[in-house]
């Protein structure tokens, strides 16, 4: 057997080396070079995405560090007064009193259904909402001059929390108002929002200033 192999080797030894080299070349191309090449595009894609994330984080960090804490806190207070995180009856009553005082009418009473306070199934049932924003419906009675009762309705629209009037009845000094008080519970913030914090646009700044002007007195 050995002699036969030696004979084959002697016969083909000149062809053996190039064949081995070519085979090795193909092996390296298909098993090493091409897989690594296709991985390069994937890694490059990851790098591009990572660079964008790092840039967003840098911008977010510099924005937060350049904005005074007092301003952030005040803006937060205005935003959460405009849309409280829960059904805040005390805040609603403060707002109604403020609007009534401004319009020179007297609140006679209000009627509301807060809804479930405790539920063993741990979910709020039947919470009403408009365009996904939940609200609490309140019926308010007030007494005063017809013009002042109308002014009271207008004052409600320039107060916080944000409300919507669905019905107004003014009858010889007595007013009845059907009001939806909007609120918005805190929700967990998606990661892409946390990493990419943007400054307020001019439109948002104007709106914030408008809302701040509507803050109930004393807040």
């Amino acid at each position, binding site marked *: 057997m050995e002699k036969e192999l030696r004979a084959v080797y002697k016969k083909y030894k000149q062809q053996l080396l*190039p064949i081995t080299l070519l085979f090795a070349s193909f092996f390296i191309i298909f098993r090493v070079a091409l897989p690594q090449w296709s991985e390069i595009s994937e890694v490059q894609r990851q*790098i591009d995405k990572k660079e964008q994330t790092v840039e967003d984080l840098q911008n977010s960090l510099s924005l*937060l560090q350049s904005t005074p804490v007092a301003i952030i806190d005040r803006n937060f207070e205005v935003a959460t007064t405009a849309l409280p995180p829960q059904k805040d009856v005390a805040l609603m009553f403060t707002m109604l009193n403020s609007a009534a005082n401004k319009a020179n009418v007297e609140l006679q009473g209000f009627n509301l259904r807060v809804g479930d306070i405790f539920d063993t199934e741990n979910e709020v049932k039947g919470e009403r909402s408009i365009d996904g924003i939940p609200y609490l419906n309140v019926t308010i009675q007030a007494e005063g001059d017809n013009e002042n009762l109308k002014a009271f309705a207008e004052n409600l629209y320039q107060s916080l929390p944000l409300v919507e009037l669905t019905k107004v009845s003014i009858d010889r000094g007595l007013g009845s108002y059907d009001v939806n008080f909007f609120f*918005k519970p805190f929700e967990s913030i998606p990661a892409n929002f946390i990493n990419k914090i943007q400054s307020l646009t001019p439109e948002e700044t104007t709106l914030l200033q408008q809302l701040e002007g509507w803050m109930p007195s004393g807040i």
Partner: protein
Amino acid sequence: MKREINLSLGPRKDNTLAKRITLYSSIIFSIVVCITLGILSYRLFLSNQLSNLTGDEEVLQAQLNSIKEQRDKFVVVKERLGEAKRILGRRLNITGKFDNVEALIPSQASLETFNGTEEEVELRVESENLGSLSQLINEKIAELANDKKQGVQKIEMKSFLLNPITKKYTVVFSVTYK
């Protein structure tokens, strides 16, 4: 005796082709190895770059987490301003309707009752002056009906009466909007 001795070694074998093939295959192999090493080096470089970026990201995340409260408040403010804008853009304007119909009331008449929703408004107007109510019905209400911007679908006069005690005329009419 003469013997023929053949000292020839046989025909000379020409192995130029074999040498050439060996040379070419060596060149190809060298090129392939060089290119592969280049690819591997680049791949290593990119991995290193990715690793550095990941480190940068972690550092920045840690810095952001250290001011988590401000960050979350900022996000909440942006989010709520968006919702507030939506609410303000779609709020029903019942007091606006009140103003529009109040503008119709002649000076000698007074608006006694207003009942308004988004779809319908009902008014009760009183006056001692029949002429002013007549003007309200014949002119002012017609103007309201013809004003396309108001979006009036129907205007209905529900009652017209005279209070014998106060001697005041009372007209009740409703405006239905599209």
